[in-house]
């Protein structure tokens, strides 16, 4: 369940109702994403996005560690 994909925060802005939003890029597509749940995410961070919400900031060190453990190239 819960299709969520990684995207790159391009900019942050105040959206409707004063909620923090960001322009988030997923390769060749971009959409406005609510950043209310990742207050720490800044421009240049990768976040994981589900139904228009960033639900976590992705942790690059943790990703590299997982790849190192399984011996895959990062």
């Amino acid at each position, binding site marked *: 369940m819960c299709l969520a994909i990684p995207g790159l925060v391009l900019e942050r802005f105040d959206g409707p109702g004063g909620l923090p939003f960001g322009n988030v890029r997923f*390769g060749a597509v971009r959409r406005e994403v609510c950043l209310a749940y990742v207050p720490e995410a800044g421009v240049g961070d990768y976040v994981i996005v589900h139904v228009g919400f960033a639900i976590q900031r992705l942790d690059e060190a943790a990703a590299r560690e997982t790849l190192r453990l399984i011996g895959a190239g990062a």
Partner: protein
Amino acid sequence: MADASCPVPFSTYERVVLAHGGGGRVMHRLIDELFLAAFGADPLRAQHDGAVIEVSGLLAVTTDAFTVRPLVFPGGDIGSLAVHGTVNDLVCCGATPTQMTVSFILEEGLALERLRAIVGSMAAAAREVGLTIVAGDTKVVERGKGDGVFISATGLGRVITPGPLSPSRVRPGDAVLVTGPVGDHGVAVMLEREGLSVDTVGDFVSDAASCLPQLRALLDAGVDLRCLRDPTRGGLATVLNEIARAAEVGVHLDDAAVPVRAEVRDACELLGLDPLYVACEGRLVVFVPEPDAPAALAALRATPGSEGAARVGAVTREHAGLVMAASSFGTTRVLDLLSGEQLPRIC
């Protein structure tokens, strides 16, 4: 002073009104000033009830209805789409298109400028392949009863292949090719729809185009064509299933070999769609005997628009009626028909 008696001259309408389908002067002016001006064919100018055409040899006939939302999308509009769709169906019959008839169902309120643009791109697409629009009809439905424009078209073509093209000629061992990357049309149209709130960074243009050059290239290369299909609704996966069922063969698809542009892949990941099921409007799936595959591929890749042609699979005796997709992991799965249209998903 041609129209002193006309209470409302044509030129004051900026949008389609019911009178444009009413059979009176308003309708005739629409036909003269918009349709005839664009299509300009003699049989059409005769303004008779139908066209009389001379036929020799084998004739291919196809009929299709076109609806698309939005009416104009990157890379085309419903007018060019109606021509390309009709042409490609004729191409799949091994024919070069010759004549076409069209009927328009217009929704009251459609901007006439928009209609003029649609008719213009239809005429241009027809000219490109030497297709003459020989008969037409216009009806107007009340506002809210249509989606701007519906186009229904019938195409005629002269068969130019030495033999018939048909699923029944597909044999185990045949190679399966596609004439370019898949999914561009469906994704380009979906991203334009209101309410999806998705912006694009990369290049999203419909692949809608005539596939006549591809047919000619394959014939010029002396390839023995077994079957051609255009993967429109339901995309590549659906067409392969249709052929597998009709020909009672299996189709083995190499997932990793299917060309999908990175942009299309990104959009599909975001929307939760499988590009194998997304529509193309300017691609062909080509079945040829294995020994002819290299020549067919070379001929396609030398044809503008098909530089990205690829061999994607093979016909098998096993798994008759099924499409088996091999993953990059060396595993296989059944690639089934979908229940309906793909919808953006959350899970």
